[in-house]
């Protein structure tokens, strides 16, 4: 049983109007389990309840764009990563010179709460930036960037590319660039969460990821959704 | 009833006892309102309680049907002793509900239900508690309303009635239950002399039917005309009691003399 939050997170996972799951992640899940010859069902559980659902056995794994971090590893286990997108800074036109501490000095930065981006921003920019504001969703951060309440946002490139493609985004803002990598925070990518000690499932998923990367299924699915690879290296 | 303290006349005691109170005590906090009051009323008796304002008359009436929890004493209604817990509260809710159904009460402040019309006030308990058929209850209620001169107000809500009209409705409501005994708390305070005469006639008729009445009143003339026994309450105690002719004609206690002086 695979847990997915019904809160939409396109293009990775969302439900369409007829209640069908669609998205990159949905196809990847399907491919991984098919490759291992395993049956699965997708169970919708709200993000708030997804960890208790896992630990209490109502679902067996979470494959919902969940970033791997040290702190989380103390509570649950993760499979190997199955994607990892570059982290970029987008700012109001001309406001920020470079995607580093000097460039962001005195600026207000918006990030989505409890993401690796928040952790990164707090580690590298907290000293120089005026403030780091946390938003519940990336969309809200983007909206405030448009409204001029914040100077820059930090997020993964996929979300911000989509934002810059919109009319409002194109009008106000520009891509400043990717931040310097920190393998401790950004390098681990997104993995499938499993109950601590459920090694059989974890190994199976790892094997599945290896298999679909090896036989090209992964790249085929990715090509349907994205212009470039999102596996990261 | 027999005046136990000042029992002057030996009555033929063939009538059964209706309400008896023994050594009733009641305190509100540290304020002792009733300091041991005893009383006995047989069927057909009309006992009038008189006394100064704040002497505990209403409290006594309210204790008899346990609207107040007595602090001590004993109450017998229709020969049945009310079971009390050590703290004075009634031990059996069932018993107290049953006994109350045989006791009509007219409150000093009327207490008509504001969300019901006059007619609905009258038939409420007969229909829903005593299970009298509605048509029968309504007929009885209309007759009573007619008798107290409220026939045309049967559809009015209490808030739109004059003081005297409310009081008459309250009396009719108590009568509509056809109780075996009635507790009246100043039932004529808001009535004009004509209506007082009417209420007097009603009480006499009820007494003749063998019903028992205990009534608190400030109108000595009324007490004198209607009562078979009068109790003078002073400061939570019975100061003097006896048949009305004796009590009003030849009061013994200084206080009662003083109290009655202004009436003469």
């Amino acid at each position, binding site marked *: 049983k695979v847990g997915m939050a019904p809160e939409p997170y396109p293009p990775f996972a969302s439900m369409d109007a007829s209640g069908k799951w669609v998205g990159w992640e949905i196809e990847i899940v399907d491919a991984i389990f098919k490759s291992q010859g395993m049956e699965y069902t997708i169970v919708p559980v709200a993000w708030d309840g997804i960890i208790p659902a896992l630990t209490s056995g109502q679902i067996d794994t979470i494959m919902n764009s969940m970033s791997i971090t040290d702190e989380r590893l103390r*509570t649950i286990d993760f499979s190997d990563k199955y994607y990892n997108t570059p982290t970029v800074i987008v700012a109001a036109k001309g406001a920020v010179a470079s995607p580093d501490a000097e460039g962001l000095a005195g600026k207000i930065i918006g990030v989505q709460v409890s993401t690796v981006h928040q952790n990164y921003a707090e580690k590298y920019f907290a000293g120089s930036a005026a403030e780091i504001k*946390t938003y519940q969703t990336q969309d809200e951060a983007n909206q405030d960037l448009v409204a001029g*309440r914040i100077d820059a946002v930090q997020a993964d490139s996929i979300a911000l590319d989509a934002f810059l493609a919109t009319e409002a985004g194109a009008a106000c803002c520009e891509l400043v660039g990717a931040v310097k990598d920190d393998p401790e925070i950004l390098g681990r990518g997104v993995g499938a969460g499993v109950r601590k000690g459920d090694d059989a499932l974890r190994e199976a998923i790892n094997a599945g990821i290896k298999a679909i990367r090896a036989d090209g299924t992964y790249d085929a699915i990715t090509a349907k959704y994205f212009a470039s690879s999102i596996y990261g290296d | 009833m027999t005046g136990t303290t000042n029992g002057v006349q030996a009555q033929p005691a063939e009538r059964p006892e209706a309400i008896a109170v023994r050594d009733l005590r009641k305190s509100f906090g540290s304020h002792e309102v009733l300091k041991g009051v005893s009383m006995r009323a047989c069927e057909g008796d009309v006992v009038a309680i008189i006394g100064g304002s704040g002497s505990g008359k209403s409290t006594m009436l309210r204790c008899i049907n346990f609207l107040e929890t007595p602090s001590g004493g004993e109450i017998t209604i229709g020969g049945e002793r009310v079971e009390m817990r050590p703290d004075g509260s009634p031990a059996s809710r069932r018993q107290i509900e049953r006994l109350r159904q045989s006791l009509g009460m007219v409150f000093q402040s009327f207490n008509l239900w504001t969300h019901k019309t006059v007619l609905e006030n009258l038939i409420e308990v007969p229909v829903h508690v005593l299970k009298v058929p509605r048509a029968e209850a309504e007929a009885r209620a209309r007759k009573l309303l007619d008798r107290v001169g409220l026939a045309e107000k049967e559809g009015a809500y209490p808030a739109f009635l004059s003081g005297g009209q409310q009081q008459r409705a309250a009396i009719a409501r108590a009568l509509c239950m056809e109780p075996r005994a009635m507790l009246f708390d100043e039932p004529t305070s808001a009535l004009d002399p004509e209506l007082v005469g009417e209420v007097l006639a009603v009480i006499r008729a009820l007494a003749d039917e063998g019903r028992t009445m205990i009534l608190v009143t400030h109108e000595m003339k009324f007490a004198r005309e209607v009562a078979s026994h009068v109790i003078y309450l002073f400061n939570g105690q019975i100061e003097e009691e006896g048949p009305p002719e004796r009590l009003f004609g030849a009061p013994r206690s200084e206080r009662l003399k003083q109290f009655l002086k202004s009436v003469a």
Partner: protein
Amino acid sequence: MIAFLRPRHRQVLLVAGAALVAWCIHALDWSWLPAYWPLFLRGIWATVWLTALTTVLGLVLAIPLGFAQAAGPWFLAWPALAFCTIIRGTPLLLQIWLIYYGLGSLFPQFPWIRQSDLWPILRQAWPYAVLALTLSYAGYEGEVMRGAFKSVPRGQLEAARAMGMPRLTLFRRIWLPQALRKVLPTLSGETVLQMKATPLVATITVVETYAVASRVRQDTFIVYEPLLLLAVVYLAIAAVIVLVFRHFERMVPTRTA
């Protein structure tokens, strides 16, 4: 205090409560607490002042809103009714969004606002949070106060009118106190609700206790412990609210039948 603890059952309750706390401390995982403690303190402070400020402001607004509906002329009653209906009729989250992203994003379009001294304030989120929460509380409590004003017995007001009490004095000394007294229990509940509504302002970047707890949960995937701490904090604030209202309620004894 000693009098409070005299009844046997209170001692039992207290022991049971203490045992529960001891079990929680012993059996659950609190290793994350030191790292997040300063954040929690800031969150608690935000919860407290947001709740206090918006309930006071909201009540001040609710009183005229309720009074206009209960006894005002139609040209005051109708707008008040419309306001209360719209506030109560739409989710608070939507209102917060509209005020912050709608109203708030209008301002930057005017350069003179952006240049003015107000901009540093308007640029922040908390003024919008206070505004939205205040209006929400006013809307709900306006309805409550409407009923309260209506249920003051007419005789009580007539007594004051008959003695020539001016309208404002009558309102201040008789009508309002009696109305408030009737709804104190309701108001205490609504104030606790207001406290629990404050987390919604996290969507506009105001960080309070709930947001901190959520953050801990997302960061560490520890499920129950941050929420328990949150519950304890809320419980403490709610207890204060309940006690304050109970105190007001006890100021005038009620005769119960």
